[in-house]
């Protein structure tokens, strides 16, 4: 069996490793236009900031691929012929396959702004973007970042690390309005303020202005403000990279359309990760998932089906994490930004504004916990998942909160203050803290 995977990102590589484990004899080839070896996309920013070198982005040493007999081809796939099971590459070779996985990822969205093709305007998705940013931000004094999501804050932090003033345009009234409740977003805003990063909320990009050399010189916002800058980072999301699939006649919409087994409409052709669009996403789930974690899970899942054990993709209990300057963020389960019918939430914030916890639970008895937001605190994923899966009542969770504490040793423990705040906010549940932090107490409960 020859499994051909287009894309060596987390989805493609996870699938390759999972298939290798189950089918030691299979021939597996990964094709990538972007890089000779798999690299960690979320870590791109650390190379720009000088925390890491480019070679440090590789999750595996170079010997790993040969040792696991994973063929790597560094070339662009130009044409796919799904009737004859053939893939043509830009280096002139053609590869025959038995099974094909499209894990082609995404590309940065451009919304058709005037001036968006000027030199010094870019997104941050891959290695070419990192190179462009390194080149185009040399010696500049200000960069404008468009977008109030995860990449937006990353770009701001990157510029800041070089002593370049970032200015961030955020469409919503607060940071990451689609995901974070305003209390949490305010803590992120404090990070912007502390690092002296100006943010314009309720403001979008209208136009990018260029100079005589075709380089960006300023942006104009929807509030009419003209902001001088020498670089513009577009962080308004990514869109699935479907060009190859579409040319091959595979059914697409925004992404490559797949069923719950991550199969496309063409036999033996699968799609997973950023580029895939679920025809029927699960309740409360989105059709296109563009995260490192979901890419990994989809890669793992599609590997089962490719190996002959048809396995439907189930996202499981949601989790995600990020870091906003010095503020870590973790979320588990269902954690909506806006008040939701049938759900209540308990929110605690440390007086310094550097730590917060929100616990979401059902309004009706027994008040089962459905999700968590943690800022400036580390929660134990296994514990949070267990509570959510078992629909543990909020009173139980609060009284055993220490079990979920994953902060390093000697860090201040806030469980007492959290429980006290909970008892004030919800006097009907009088909770007593029973469990402290640590692996031993985890066993004792």
């Amino acid at each position, binding site marked *: 069996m020859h499994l051909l995977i287009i894309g060596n990102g*987390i989805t493609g590589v996870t699938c390759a*490793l*999972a298939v290798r*484990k189950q089918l030691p004899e299979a021939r597996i080839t990964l094709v990538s236009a972007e890089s000779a070896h798999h690299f*960690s996309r*979320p*870590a791109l920013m*650390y190379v720009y*900031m*000088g*925390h*890491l*070198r480019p070679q*440090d*982005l590789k*999750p595996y040493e170079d010997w790993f691929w040969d040792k696991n007999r994973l063929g790597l081809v560094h070339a662009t796939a130009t044409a796919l012929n799904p009737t004859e099971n053939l893939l043509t590459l830009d280096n002139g070779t053609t590869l025959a396959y038995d099974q094909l996985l499209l894990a082609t990822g995404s590309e940065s969205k451009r919304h058709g702004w005037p001036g968006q093709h000027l030199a010094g305007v870019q997104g941050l998705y891959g290695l070419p973007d990192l190179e462009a940013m*390194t*080149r185009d*931000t040399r*010696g500049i004094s200000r960069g404008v970042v468009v977008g109030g999501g995860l990449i937006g804050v990353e770009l701001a932090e990157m510029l800041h*690390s*070089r*002593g370049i003033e970032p200015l961030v345009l955020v469409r919503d009234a607060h940071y990451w309005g689609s995901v974070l409740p305003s209390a949490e977003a305010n803590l992120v805003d404090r990070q912007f303020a*502390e*690092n002296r990063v100006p943010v314009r909320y309720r403001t979008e990009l209208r136009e990018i202005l260029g100079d005589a050399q075709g380089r960006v010189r300023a942006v104009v916002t929807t509030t009419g403000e003209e902001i001088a800058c020498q670089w513009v980072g577009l962080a308004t999301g990514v869109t699935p990279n479907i060009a190859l699939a579409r040319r091959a006649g595979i059914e697409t919409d925004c992404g490559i359309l797949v069923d719950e087994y991550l199969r496309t409409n063409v036999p033996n052709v699968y799609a997973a990760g950023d580029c895939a669009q679920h025809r029927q996403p699960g309740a409360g789930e989105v059709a296109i998932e563009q995260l490192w*974690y979901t890419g*990994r*899970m989809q890669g*793992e*899942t599609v590997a089962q089906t490719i190996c002959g054990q048809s*396995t439907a*993709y*189930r*996202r*499981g209990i949601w*989790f995600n*994490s*990020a870091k906003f*300057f*010095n503020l*870590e963020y*973790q979320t588990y389960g269902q954690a909506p930004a806006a008040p939701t019918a049938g759900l209540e939430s308990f929110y605690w914030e440390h007086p310094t504004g550097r730590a917060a916890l929100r616990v979401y639970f059902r309004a009706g008895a027994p008040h089962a916990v459905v999700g968590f937001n943690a800022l400036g605190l*580390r929660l*134990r*994923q*296994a514990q949070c*998942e*267990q509570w959510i899966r078992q629909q543990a009542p909020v009173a139980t969770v609060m009284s055993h909160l220490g079990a979920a504490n*994953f*902060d*390093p*040793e*000697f*860090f*201040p423990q806030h469980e007492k203050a959290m429980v006290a705040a909970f008892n004030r906010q919800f006097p009907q549940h009088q909770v007593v803290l029973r469990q402290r932090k*640590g*692996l*031993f107490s*985890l*066993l004792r409960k």
Partner: protein
Amino acid sequence: MSPSLPASSPAEKLTLAMVATGLLALLLALADADPGRQQTWLYLALGLVSIGTLTWSWLRFGRHPAGVQQNNLWQRASTGRGSVAWVTGLVLTGFYVVLYWYSSDDGQGNFGPLNNLVHGLDSFSRWLRARPADQWFLYGTFYTLAILLMGTRALWKYRHSRYQLIRTGSVMFFQLGFAFIIPALLQFFQQPEFYFSYFWPLKYDYLFPGTAAALVHNGGLGVFMVFWGAVMSLLATPVLTYFYGKRWYCSWVCGCGGLAETAGDPYRQLADKSRAAWRWEVRIIYPVLGLIVAITAVLWVNFALNSSLLGEVGSGAAKWYGFAIGAVFSGVIGVGFYPILGPRVWCRFGCPMAAYLGLLQKHFSRFRISTNGGQCISCGNCSNVCEMGIDVKQYAQRGEPIIRASCVGCGMCSTACPRGVVNLENGPREGRYQASPLIHADSLRILS
């Protein structure tokens, strides 16, 4: 192509100029023939370097919001193996060569090229130890000062992490108290110079029969020192390592570790993370442990049998070990190459104490570094800051706990992790190697 670095502020430049002037004053102390002025130059040098380093640390780290401060680490010539690093390495290596082989007292109170510096400390040494300075007192003073100054820098830099604050405070305390003041006070009171924070097999001669006999001969305190050395090496080490891992010593108490954690902190990212380096580590460090155990055993057998042949073999081997391992490996290479190979070369490849603690940590300990479910993004910041060259992300991205003989428990992987994935924990030994059970799309294990 690397982007341009942000300019240092004028205040930062001023403090760096202060440090440079201090180093210049040190050269003047070396060159000046007048004993009075030598001492003035030396104290001026120490004062300028100290104030310059402390102020620079505050300007560089203290003024910025508390958090991970690694910007431009690999792009600076000083911390990214650039020209400044090579010059620093050469100077450090040269200092060790001169110190070890060209600075012994010639019998007339002349200490070679470092003579002026040694005598510059005479009055301080008389006050502290009731005797004139020698080259080892000079070394001890510089060493302790380096740990205190760069320790303060680390306190500024890592002030967002209580673990790092307490741990850094600990290495500063043990260096100043146990490795500098107490040995000096012992000398002041005409007692044997003894370091209560160094144990066999790192301080290999502490369990040699010759050392033990000399100490016992000295009377009550000497007997206690022998007892302390034996108990710490043979009893306390396994017990403490069982509960806390080898970190109780390597990154909290040990002086070599203390220097690496403070003065070596700017270089921790330089440790080689490759599998090849790991193989060399295993090939070298366990034979060193075997060697010193064998030498110690031979010396004791000789002591028991009073055999002259074994005595010659044993003392000859001990002497050779002292030169090759004690001086060349731990000093010249271990510290001299900080700016090129990272600060834990000796601890990782050579230290027999680390080997011994490592075996205990791997097989008889409650310590592990836990991985938090599936949150790892393979960014590699954990591996980057590992001074022991452990490729931490290999474990984290598989959801596995990190249990490695070499891990000194400095906690930097946990401090640097942007997603809260790694955490140093002491827990029950049962299930210690268990991977995170809950990273899956329902019934699937990720990368199992």
